[in-house]
């Protein structure tokens, strides 16, 4: 007797697809609507950043790091310049450290806003929450324009500090932003995180258990959504994070909902951090005396910061010349993609999109 038989169908999601967040390709095998196999394919945006870094001097590489995670260039800059400072033993003035932390946190808010908005767009909310998020992100980008003249590819930080002090325009605008932002974030939370359709789509979907998350080396909001309380800002305080008081939000079970809820909570914490920084910051120099062509002593070092997507690390080897002998980037988006199969198998096509959205990948960083 032959019953009804279904035949698996293989679909190429991407590299040109509205919700793969860039040029990411997934070969997915569906049984009806259910995912039975998938294979991520990347490398479409590979630009050889690490190799290019070997032919540029240490300051010029800052411009390359902008283009890796292009929605969070500040964090990339910070991670890179910290590595160079460690490598060549440069002491950074305190004011510069404060401004760097403010910038990194602003960038974290901007990046998380974008992640949340696009996740909601993937769930199908016709861009409304996305545009509310972009409205707030735009204000942050305006701040960056005041600070350093660019909005996306900032190249703001330099080994030894920052290149330009923030003027009064910036501080005034920042004050206004800090006052208004929590209100808008609350509104955003009310709009989406209590919405029953969002809950139905995200709760208990794509669970990543804490043990798995640690095994796969996942970091950032995804790790914290899986209940693991790990944040480099607390675990290994860099810059001036040890003087600041903030919480690390964690999720309940590690599903899609937790991943975006953790981001929402983190934005509130970032606002808190910025408020404290504004209170503590004092006048002073903003850049250590560094030569134009930095020549670190031969050696190697690895430094990492807690970027918006996870642990963002740079590994540099110096041979004493003006440019590094080798540069390796630990890109969080790339490593966060590894448990993709674990999360997605057995779920429906709509869930595939939301799970991918909740990981918040930036292809510039995945492919480098």
């Amino acid at each position, binding site marked *: 007797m032959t019953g009804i038989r279904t035949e698996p169908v293989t679909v190429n999601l991407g590299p040109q697809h509205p919700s793969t967040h860039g040029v990411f390709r997934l070969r997915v095998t569906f049984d009806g609507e259910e995912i039975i196999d998938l294979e991520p394919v990347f490398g479409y945006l590979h630009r050889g950043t690490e190799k290019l870094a070997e032919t540029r001097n240490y300051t010029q590489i800052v411009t390359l790091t902008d283009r890796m995670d292009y929605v969070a260039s500040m964090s990339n800059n910070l991670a890179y310049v910290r590595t160079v400072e460690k490598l060549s033993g440069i002491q950074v003035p305190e004011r510069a450290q404060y401004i760097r932390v403010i910038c990194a946190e602003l960038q974290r808010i901007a990046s998380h806003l974008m992640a949340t908005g696009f996740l909601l767009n993937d769930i199908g*909310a016709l861009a409304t929450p996305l545009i509310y998020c972009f409205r707030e992100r735009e204000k942050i980008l305006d701040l960056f324009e005041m600070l350093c003249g660019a909005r996306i590819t900032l190249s703001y930080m330099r080994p030894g500090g920052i290149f330009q002090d923030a003027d009064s325009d910036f501080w005034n605008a920042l004050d206004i932003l800090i006052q208004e932002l929590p209100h808008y974030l609350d509104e955003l939370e009310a709009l989406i995180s209590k919405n029953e359709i969002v809950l139905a*789509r995200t709760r*208990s979907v794509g669970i990543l258990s804490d043990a798995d998350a640690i095994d796969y080396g996942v970091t950032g909001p995804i790790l914290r959504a*899986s209940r693991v309380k790990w944040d480099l800002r607390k675990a290994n305080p860099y810059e001036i994070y040890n003087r600041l008081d903030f919480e690390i939000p964690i999720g309940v079970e590690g599903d899609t909902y937790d991943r975006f809820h953790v981001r929402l909570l983190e934005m509130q914490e970032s606002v808190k951090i910025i408020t404290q920084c504004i209170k503590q910051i004092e006048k002073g120099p903003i850049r250590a005396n560094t030569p134009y062509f930095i020549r670190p002593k031969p050696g190697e070092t690895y430094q990492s910061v807690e970027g918006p997507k996870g642990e963002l690390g740079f590994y540099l080897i110096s041979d004493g010349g003006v440019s590094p002998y080798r540069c390796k980037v630990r890109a969080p988006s790339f490593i966060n993609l590894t448990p993709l199969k674990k999360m997605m198998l057995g779920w429906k096509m709509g869930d595939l999109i939301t799970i991918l959205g909740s990981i918040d990948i930036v292809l510039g960083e995945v492919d480098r």
Partner: protein
Amino acid sequence: MTQIYFVQLIDFYSFYEMFYSIFQNLGFEKSSSWMSYIAAGGSLSFLAINLLVLATAFYTWFERRTIARFQVRRGPNRNGPFGLGQPFADVIKLIMKEDTIPSEADKPVFTIAPIALLAPTLLIITVIPIDDSSFLATLNIGILFIVGITSVNSIAIFMAGWGSRNKYAILGSMRGAAMLISYEIPMALGITSVLLIAGSLAMSEIVAKQEIWFIAVMPMGFFVFMASATAEMSRTPFDQIEAESELGSGYNTEFSGIKFAILFLAEFMAPIVTSAVVTTLFLGGSQGFNFLPGQFWFVLKMFVVIFALLWIRSTWPRLRVDQIMGFAWKILMELGFVNIFLIAIEVAILMDPVTGILTSQDMLIMAGINWVFTIITLVFLANFLGKRNYDRPDPVPSPLANMEPKGE
């Protein structure tokens, strides 16, 4: 009803009589009957198609402007005053584009699909009584006609997906076929409850019976009908057929040029037609205050319905495909049945057995009972459904995490 009518809607029979007399005078004694049938039909369809296409053009403008406002944007505002020229620019652009047919496509099916999708939508408007009468005069099985005609939609969508031989399109049209057929049942149930009170299948009779609007008499029926109608035209939260973030563009992925324009037209005509049907069935049709003509009230009510649909569209995300099917079969259908039982019992008790008339007092009593019942049911359902997922425990840090500062 004593209303001032500024414009009398021209229906099929007045056309017919006009042409008949013209042909008689021209000297076609024998053949004037069938010739005037054809002429009346032709001019009627010309009128209906042009009216609807023009209305759809302005509707797309209205939709884009409204949704843009919800999304704190401006919407189209460059072409002409307030961007009113935008729909025409879009149409010209779409028509001028190359009309490609994929080489692997099933060409006849691929070509017929857009027309098959457009035709039923156009047909529906002919039986809607925009005023006391409709294009097809008072078709005495109006609502049955609508239910029958709309089921062609699912075939058309499946044709579009199947014919284009694209995996996304097939996924979209599979979803479409499953979804549209499922939602036809609750829709029919919602309509049945209307028919129980109105006691007639004719649209104008249904309007005339609404001394109290049926939305007030049976909110549950309205809810069931509205939800399934939203699904029938595949709007958020039920827009699984297109689901542009999942399927690219769903069943119309491969279409371009004039074919896409027609699909687009049909898709954007659906809200207009649906709101017209909702207005007729639940919002008292062309009833209103006397100082303005009935057409005005009808269009106003349509706009309110359209605005509500847009409001929902710009706020709510999309449900997953199995959740949508579950909603149709597990919730909407049950609600529809319960509603029908309730209305049937009430009608059986309250209706005058001899004349078969429901007075407005009777309807008020029904409204009271139904509202109480609806609220109780919805609250019960909400709490029953919400138990599982709504409240969560506080997060507990995993024991695997070890974030003690170094040296402690």
